[in-house]
């Protein structure tokens, strides 16, 4: 009973202040956010609003200045295998083959060779790259590389997936394909997703909730529910409800862009 109401990630009064060269920079100011298990959340906001900082703190890659960030009711102080990360720049190990990249997390956690190979192949199959298991990252296109990175994050079997503009560097067509694939994987594997993007279309297509962040100092401005049923695909974008929600979010984000310009 307790477990059901306990949020997967619970962020309370989180602040982050950097000591910059020209004094203090407030990256995050009093952020409060609850993410439920298996929820898909997208974060949008102008650049410099602290989205990536927020993600890095949840990942355990950066320290917070004050407040509390909990995953499964335990304070996050360092990276953990229950939280996987997909980076914008793929971050594949160029000296490892696709397969070795994908199974690296399992290897680090002491999983036997046979077992990790099977698991890695399962996820490579899910992203349609089994044929490329023995290729090196340099032989792959950008879209394929990001598929490998997604497979690598999933293979380590985290409960929570943190994605920092994962499709930001891809062309529009590949991007659309990967959005659908990600939704498909999310649907089959049931994970909690925290997805950063600056593309409002992408946010509305993927998420159950879209978090709008305001410009510096980074705060949560509003959380908007996307009440469009799954499964969604690119055609979902043609629906009226999609446009309504998108325009609503867009106008709010646009105000933030303008305030940054000033």
């Amino acid at each position, binding site marked *: 009973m307790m477990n059901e109401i306990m949020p997967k990630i619970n962020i309370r009064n989180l602040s982050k202040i950097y000591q910059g060269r020209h004094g203090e920079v407030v990256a995050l100011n009093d952020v409060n956010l609850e993410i439920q298990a298996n929820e898909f959340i997208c974060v949008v906001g102008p650049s410099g609003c602290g989205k990536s900082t927020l993600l890095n703190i949840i*990942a*355990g*890659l950066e320290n917070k200045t004050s407040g509390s960030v909990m995953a499964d009711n335990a304070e996050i102080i360092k*990276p*953990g*295998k229950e*939280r*996987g*990360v997909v*980076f914008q*720049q793929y*971050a*594949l*190990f*160029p*000296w*490892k083959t696709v397969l070795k990249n994908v199974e*690296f*997390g399992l290897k*680090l*956690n002491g999983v036997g060779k046979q077992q990790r190979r099977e698991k890695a192949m399962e996820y490579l199959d*899910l*992203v*349609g*790259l089994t044929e490329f298991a023995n290729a*090196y*990252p*340099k*032989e*792959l*296109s950008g*879209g*394929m590389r990001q598929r490998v990175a997604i497979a*690598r994050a999933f293979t*380590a079997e985290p409960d929570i997936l943190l994605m920092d503009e994962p499709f930001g560097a891809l062309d529009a067509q*590949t991007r659309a*394909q*990967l959005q*659908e*694939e990600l939704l*498909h994987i999310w649907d089959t594997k049931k994970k909690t997703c925290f997805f950063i993007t600056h593309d409002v279309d992408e946010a509305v297509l993927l998420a159950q909730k879209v978090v709008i962040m305001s410009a510096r100092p980074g705060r949560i401005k509003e959380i908007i529910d996307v009440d469009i049923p799954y499964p969604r695909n690119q055609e979902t974008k043609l629906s009226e409800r999609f446009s309504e929600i998108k325009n609503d979010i867009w106008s709010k984000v646009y105000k933030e862009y303008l305030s940054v310009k000033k």
Partner: protein
Amino acid sequence: MATNNVDFEKKQAEAMEIKKKRLSLSRIDNRIMVIISLALGIIAWFLLALIPSVSTIITNPIILIKTFISELENGLISDIYTSIFRVLSGFLLGLVVAIPIAFLMGWYGTFRSLTEPWIQFFRTIPPIALIPLVIVAFGVGESAKIAVIFVATFLVMVVSIYQGVRNVDPTLIKAARVLGANDKDIFFEVVVPASFPYILVGVRLGLASAWTTLVAAEMTGASKGLGNMIMEAGTFFRMDQVILGIVLIGIIGFIMDKLVLYLEKKLAGWQEVSK
């Protein structure tokens, strides 16, 4: 759904293959150009040697080949062997010491702060300037030459390998960390392989500097070696031998460089080359 998308990307990959083939075609062109360039160079050399006033200094290629054959019977092989032995011993010593120090410098800030000023200072001193000191310390035997080469190669390699350790992409370290890597994993699974190409660059630079230092060291007093051969031939005005020595040093250095490049291709072929 996924397979459809992959089909499209396979086509992209095929297109990349075709581009590569085109690249290898232009590579053949390149090889022909190298041969033409070599031929032109030798012809120019030949013509230059026809001018009487020049021919006393620059021997023509045919005489050079004759000198080469007669020197082969006169202990040239042992000169070459001695020189290569000195270069490789000094260089290997330098490499064995440079690798751990470079990694310590890249990994531990305190160690870096302690060592970096000294390395930067000694780097500005041409190793040849150390020769008189080294001769007093080690005499004029093998160890003196090896010591000078060691110092020269060590300094070049430690700087280059250290750069590699410092240049490891921080995102890769983050990526390893979120997959559960501890410090030891990050060092052996990320930092070492990521710096490997820089080690090979260091090896290339180290070998080149070993050669230049060798000749200088041998010219200051040695009973054998290519540098010594050039020096001795010079005093007897045997310009054919001097040029033979120069050409041999060039060829051996060139071969060593190509060997390292070949190794790089084999061992660090995963690197992305921007064209």
